[in-house]
């Protein structure tokens, strides 16, 4: 097993030579930066496919009677849309993608702890994605991304393929989680104590154990569903003594932490972008780091709040309601701290900053409706309706995806050496922000008035708002097409970035863009938090003085 | 003496041996440091407990034995 050379000291000069040849460098690469870029590109391909599926969903819902696709096909489409967005887009982008790309540099490491394992986890990911999409050929699963049995036991053959695909992507996540935990525990540069780690690293450090533990629990549930479907071994089928509610426990024990897997790294991204462009330290560093860890821990104790209508004993439901309320406290602390970070700053409106501020505005709405849903009496009304659809999209699109876009605009120069076009970027932001709100805000009242989720046809009284949402969603798609055009165009034609186009202070900006193989010739020593703009950089022993970093963020007016 | 009695006798005798060995190893390693030794100590403790459980099962204290002649 190849293990990366560790930090400074006696082995500082022990650097493997950079491999030559296209395949070793860019395909089966061991370099965490290349693997991160591979993750990002692959995940955005799946993102495009999932976006097409989303537009198919909205097109079907233009008319109350549907008619764009058959009912069964519609059910397949939203199931694959959900599964893709969760497992093939958001989780890989935030952990495997941005995680791999920057956090080893941020802690002053030359690579992750197990580069081979890292390469393996990446290559499992596109394979499982292809498996998931190939389930369309067999008859894709129809019961949504949650695949509750017994209806998923009746599903077409593709449902078993779905189990296998998600199992595999889970194995990949578990390996990534192990890799990241060891990397953060063991490979920090000298002086990089826990209280000096950038907050993105804290985000990854809170996420990695979730990846490692929760994903394995999901693997067990998927394995049970698979063997039940293929070999008739009864776990969930009530006709044979199994329990369908047991699947919900096993599934949500993973999938609630999965929500935090999808949001904690995005919190980290926002906590990097805000101080950089406000020219000001992040407000309440310790409390933000601590709240990430407590959210991760509490995340394991609230899974049954997805199951208030499933027939649990009332005394079991109560603690889940209250613990879910409690999660609101650390989340609120984060939101307040980010807002306070802007106070008395010198705010530069780059696209990354716009997305970060948009994140706070939208995620807060999703967080507040999350508290609504935790209240059992209200949840008994809106569970399984479009209110839930609205809530989860505010958290996962308004939260995670806005964070991902902020990260893309922020770190694209580090990946490619060039800036994304800021004019197109701002157009992307505004169209996306407006389109998103127009699409998902009406879903709140649709759900409260009586529109259930996962439906191919609906009551004609909801026609107006559904059409409204569909047209707004086309606006969102148009915004995303602008982003794709921008990314492809900027790789060749973007403005050259230089090492530190934003004047940021974390370690990844103190080395060239794109970084050299093995990141640092000499591993630097760290003397403090990266966020204080009034002091010199808290690093010693950086490779060379970087004189090409402009003090003003490029693209800010 | 039927098969079940032999199995029980084996479980009791070997259970005593394994439990003693496991707890002795734990005693010897008590002061060992380092990550893996901490794990070893926990595992030896559980191993010894497992052996005790098996020996109790052999003695018919815990677990289920089918009625005679079944």
């Amino acid at each position, binding site marked *: 097993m190849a*293990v990366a050379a*560790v930090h400074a000291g006696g*082995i500082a000069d022990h650097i493997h030579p950079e491999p030559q040849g296209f395949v070793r460098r860019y395909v089966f690469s061991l370099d965490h930066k290349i693997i991160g870029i591979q993750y990002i590109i692959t995940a955005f391909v799946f993102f495009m496919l999932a976006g097409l599926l989303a537009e198919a969903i909205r097109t079907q819902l233009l008319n109350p009677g549907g008619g764009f696709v058959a009912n069964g096909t519609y059910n397949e489409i939203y199931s694959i849309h959900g599964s893709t967005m969760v497992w093939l887009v958001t989780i890989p982008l935030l952990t495997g993608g941005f995680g791999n790309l920057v956090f080893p540099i941020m802690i002053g490491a030359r690579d992750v*702890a*197990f580069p081979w394992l890292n390469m393996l986890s990446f290559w499992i990911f596109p394979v499982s994605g292809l498996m998931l999409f190939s389930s369309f050929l067999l008859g894709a699963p129809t019961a949504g991304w949650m695949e509750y049995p017994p209806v998923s036991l009746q599903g077409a053959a593709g449902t078993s393929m779905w189990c296998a695909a998600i199992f595999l992507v889970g194995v990949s996540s578990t390996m990534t*989680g*192990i890799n990241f*935990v*060891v990397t953060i525990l*063991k490979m920090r540069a000298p002086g990089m104590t826990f209280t000096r780690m950038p907050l993105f690293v804290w985000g990854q450090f809170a996420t990695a154990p979730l990846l*490692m*533990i929760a*994903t*394995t*629990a999901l693997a*067990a549930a998927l394995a*049970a569903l698979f063997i039940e479907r293929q*070999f008739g*071994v*009864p*776990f969930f089928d009530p006709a*044979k*003594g*199994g*329990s369908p509610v*047991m699947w919900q*426990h*096993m599934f949500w024990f993973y999938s609630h932490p999965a929500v935090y897997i999808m949001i904690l790294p995005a919190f980290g991204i926002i906590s990097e972008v805000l101080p950089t462009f406000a020219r000001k330290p992040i407000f309440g560093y310790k409390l933000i780091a601590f709240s990430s860890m407590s959210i991760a821990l509490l995340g394991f104790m609230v899974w049954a709040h997805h199951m208030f209508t499933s027939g649990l004993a009332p005394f079991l439901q109560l603690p889940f309601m209250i613990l879910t309320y409690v999660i609101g406290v650390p989340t609120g602390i984060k939101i307040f701290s980010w807002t306070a970070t802007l106070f008395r700053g010198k705010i530069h409106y780059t696209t990354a900053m716009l997305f970060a501020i948009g994140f706070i505005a939208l995620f807060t709405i999703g967080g507040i409706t999350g508290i609504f849903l935790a209240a059992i009496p209200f949840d008994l009304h809106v569970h399984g309706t479009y209110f839930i659809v609205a809530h989860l999209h505010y958290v996962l699109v308004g939260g995670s995806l806005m964070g991902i876009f902020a990260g893309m605009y922020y770190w694209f120069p580090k990946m490619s050496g060039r800036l994304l076009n800021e004019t197109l970027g701002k157009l992307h932001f505004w169209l996306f922000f407006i389109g998103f709100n127009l699409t998902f805000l009406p879903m709140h009242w649709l759900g409260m008035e009586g529109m259930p989720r996962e439906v191919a046809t609906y009551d004609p009284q909801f026609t107006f708002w559904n059409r409204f949402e569909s047209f707004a969603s086309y606006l969102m798609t148009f915004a995303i097409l602008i982003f794709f055009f921008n990314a492809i165009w900027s790789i060749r034609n973007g403005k050259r970035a230089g090492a530190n186009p934003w004047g940021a202070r974390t370690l990844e900006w103190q080395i060239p863009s794109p970084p050299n193989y093995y990141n640092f010739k000499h591993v630097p020593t760290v003397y403090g938090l990266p966020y204080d703009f009034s002091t010199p950089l808290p690093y010693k022993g950086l490779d060379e003085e970087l004189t090409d970093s402009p003090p003003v963020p490029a693209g800010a007016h | 003496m039927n098969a*079940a009695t032999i*199995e*029980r006798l*084996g*479980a009791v005798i*070997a*259970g005593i*041996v*394994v439990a003693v*060995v*496991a707890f002795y190893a734990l005693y010897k390693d008590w002061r060992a440091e*380092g*990550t893996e*030794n901490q*794990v*070893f100590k926990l*595992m030896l403790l*559980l*191993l010894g*407990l*497992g*052996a005790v*459980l*098996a*020996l109790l*099962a*052999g003695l018919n204290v*815990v*677990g*289920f*034995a*089918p009625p005679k002649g079944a």
Partner: protein
Amino acid sequence: MSVASLARGAHGELDQLYIETRELRLQGFLLFLVSDCVLFSSFIFAYLYLRNSGQGWPPPGIQRLDVAFAAWNSVVLFGSGATMHYALENFKHGKWMAYMWFLLATIVLGAGFLGGQAYEYNHLIYAEHVTWWGSGIFGASFFTLTGMHGMHVFFGVCYLTVLVLQSSAGVYTRGKYFGITAGTLYWHFVDVIWVVLFSIFYLL
């Protein structure tokens, strides 16, 4: 740290790279065991959930498991845990032959446990009860969990056999023997899982 000092103490000039990467591998391996443990825990949760789902246990038509043979078979596996522990101890102290014998004893006991499992499966499926994987929730939980554990034992036996071959070829030296440590950790883990499975299936 102790590992490093042990290695230096033994050889004096063990390279730094090995010592530091050994720590990484150790932590990675322990975390792998943690996630494997979660896998077992999930299935154990499923078993306990089904067991308490209201129709009584064992389900109608199935007799309670007989503990006598299982107790003997468990002691065989626990014994292999003890021999593995002493294999590692002897290797640390440079007693190569004793290490080899303890390792071989572990393999024999592990294989013996697998044989016992096969005997028990045969007994349950054909001789006494009419139960198999797909025939009910008892079969589903019992054969899934013990089968998963059996697979772990099987992979362990294979790995220990590889260790024998590697050791004969001189792969491990007194300072560099992480493969043996990992094998011991894994084998202990498999034992401890069996303690839990034995308790919940045969004693509960």
